[in-house]
């Protein structure tokens, strides 16, 4: 088996009536899509793209909300040998101008041949696609059944080294950096990760994760579909408004596997009414993997306490270290045995960058959750600032080697070259190894992770800098961890000339609105300060980490 299309095709032949996806949507009855449905529904899109003249190996951007058209268009693109890339949909909060700018930025680098979207959104895409590589805009509602028309399935004859999918993170920066994954890399991941989580035919995956994010796309979509593991798929939009529906889905479909970003543990533990859990049975859940943002012991404890009365087995709480550049998982913990908790001395951690084991009763200790052992086909190394390998329990940059790694950043050979050193992929994450297990402690890059979503501070600073009254170039954006929510919150500090409190508040409000509408990131705190408050590096750049420390000192957490 060399291509994803071959596997999908084989699934439909071997077990056409096996449920592949139970699609859950608020206010509608659950819909069952079988293995055969995925191919049949997909072929409508394959044919429509072919008839429009899109060639195998060309990129097709999907701008669709959670639902059958998104699922079918994705597999249709795979069957036709096109390269799908799923984009977040425009929400009412995001300003259309900003979204159009992001799309234009995406088109410039990725150079897609086609976009699939809804009729209502087509003019928006058309405007963004002006003077771009986009030749075809396909309206999902107008895609006709392929019926008996002959469809050529170029996806079946692609080479294992061909790119099968692109994954982007959000924002102007993220959209210009598409992670390009080959068929071979995806299969390597599916095989190694299936073994790491001891996947069996009795498993049922339950997911509410968005498909434009690696955790949702791989763990919550491609993995279950291609391994014939039934997938119960909810929409992130529905989940965030009714988190109890995740528990209902697990209970009703006897779900066994889920992946959640850390904040979701806190969110579920805190925001579900008791009466919405009446009659719920969570005993089937065997692994809930914490993934995609820093994992907190406290979040696991909170989740276990809240849901154990409903049958949750505390040993079901698992951990995973993953990134799109490795298709998905790098390591997995908590499957065979409970997640290891490493108790270490806080002072050595902060001042010497070492993880020195401490007694759990000792004062001043940190409890770190292990992300488990690397997958069998992935090697992990810790490097110092000169990129030399560090011994166990020393904190440095995590580097990877293995056969799931990205082919490159799409059309960005410059970024691809920078990302590797001596054959090792530099993750930009900081961590250490102990007894063969990976611990992720922070990041080298200035990246903010809110609810599992990667945010580049430069994008937010640029937006805030557009607000009248903000001193040009004097803005810092950074993340501050919030214990209650279990995730980072975005803080923006901006310099303004005015000393007037009312005027400063007006500027702060304008920054909040500008950033929210421009990036869809909720800004928790905006602080307008006087001139020369912000610290700069020797090269004249705003020093985010130093300003974060100064902010916490002066304005508190």
């Amino acid at each position: 088996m060399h291509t994803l299309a071959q596997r999908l095709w084989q699934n439909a032949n071997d077990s056409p009536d096996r449920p592949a996806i139970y699609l859950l949507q608020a206010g509608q009855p659950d819909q069952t899509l079988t293995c055969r449905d995925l191919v049949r529904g997909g072929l409508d899109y394959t044919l429509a793209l072919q008839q429009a003249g899109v060639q195998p190996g060309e990129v097709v951007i999907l701008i669709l909300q959670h639902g059958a058209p998104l699922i079918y268009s994705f597999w249709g693109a795979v069957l036709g040998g096109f390269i799908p890339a799923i984009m977040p949909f425009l929400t009412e909060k995001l300003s259309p101008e900003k979204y159009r700018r992001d799309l234009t930025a995406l088109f410039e680098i990725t150079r897609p041949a086609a976009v699939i979207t809804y009729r209502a959104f087509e003019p928006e895409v058309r405007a963004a696609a002006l003077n771009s590589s986009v030749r075809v805009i396909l309206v999902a509602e107008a895609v006709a059944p392929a019926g008996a028309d002959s469809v050529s399935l170029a996806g079946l004859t692609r080479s294992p080294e061909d790119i099968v999918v692109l994954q982007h993170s959000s924002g102007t920066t993220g959209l210009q950096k598409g992670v390009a994954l080959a068929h071979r890399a995806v299969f390597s991941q599916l095989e190694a990760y299936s073994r790491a989580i001891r996947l069996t035919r009795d498993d049922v995956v339950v997911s509410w994760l968005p498909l434009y994010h690696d955790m949702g796309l791989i763990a919550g979509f491609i993995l279950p579909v291609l391994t014939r593991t039934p997938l119960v798929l909810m929409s992130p939009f529905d989940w965030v408004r009714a988190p109890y529906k995740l528990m209902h889905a697990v209970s009703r479909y006897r779900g066994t596997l889920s992946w959640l970003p850390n904040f979701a543990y806190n969110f579920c533990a805190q925001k579900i009414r008791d009466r919405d859990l009446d009659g719920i049975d969570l005993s089937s859940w065997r692994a809930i993997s914490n993934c995609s943002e820093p994992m907190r012991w406290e979040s696991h404890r909170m989740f276990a306490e809240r849901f154990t009365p409903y049958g949750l087995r505390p040993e079901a709480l698992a951990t995973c270290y993953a990134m799109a550049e490795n298709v998905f998982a790098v390591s997995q913990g908590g499957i065979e045995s409970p997640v290891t908790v490493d108790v270490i001395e806080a002072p050595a951690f902060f001042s010497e960058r070492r993880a020195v084991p401490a007694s759990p009763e000792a004062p001043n200790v940190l409890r770190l959750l292990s992300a488990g052992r690397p997958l069998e086909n992935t090697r992990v190394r810790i490097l110092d600032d000169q990129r030399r390998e560090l011994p166990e329990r020393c904190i440095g940059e995590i580097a990877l080697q293995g056969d799931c790694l990205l082919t490159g950043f799409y059309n960005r050979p410059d970024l691809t070259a920078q990302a590797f050193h001596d054959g090792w992929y530099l993750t930009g994450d900081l961590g250490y190894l102990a007894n063969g297990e990976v611990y992720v402690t922070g990041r080298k890059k200035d990246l903010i992770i809110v609810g599992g979503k990667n945010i580049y501070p430069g994008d937010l600073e640029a937006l805030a800098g557009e607000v009248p009254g903000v001193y040009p170039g004097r803005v810092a954006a950074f993340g501050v961890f919030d214990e209650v929510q279990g995730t980072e919150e975005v803080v923006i500090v901006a310099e303004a000339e005015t000393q007037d409190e009312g005027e400063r508040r007006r500027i702060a409000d304008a920054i909040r609105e500008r950033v929210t509408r421009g990036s869809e990131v909720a800004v928790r705190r905006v602080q307008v300060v006087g001139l020369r408050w912000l610290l700069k590096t020797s090269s004249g750049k705003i020093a985010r980490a130093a300003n974060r420390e100064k902010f916490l000192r002066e304005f508190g957490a």
Partner: protein
Amino acid sequence: MTDTVLANLSRFIATHILRQPDRTLFADDKLISGGLIDSFHLIDLSLHIEKEFGVRLDDTELNPQTFDTLGELAALIEQRRAG
């Protein structure tokens, strides 16, 4: 009556969601499309409304089609309480 509901909601949003306790929100402030309340906090607002006013908003109603401004939300609560 609406004033009380409005003042209560304004206080809750300013204190717990925006973390600007001395801020006052106005009836025509756009909560959802104006970016004051992001999707992660819609559930907080709905739990608060249920606790304070005994009105349950269904999760499918937590969108700008049902209410967007603070005034619209207060009116919706009033209407449900009366009904």
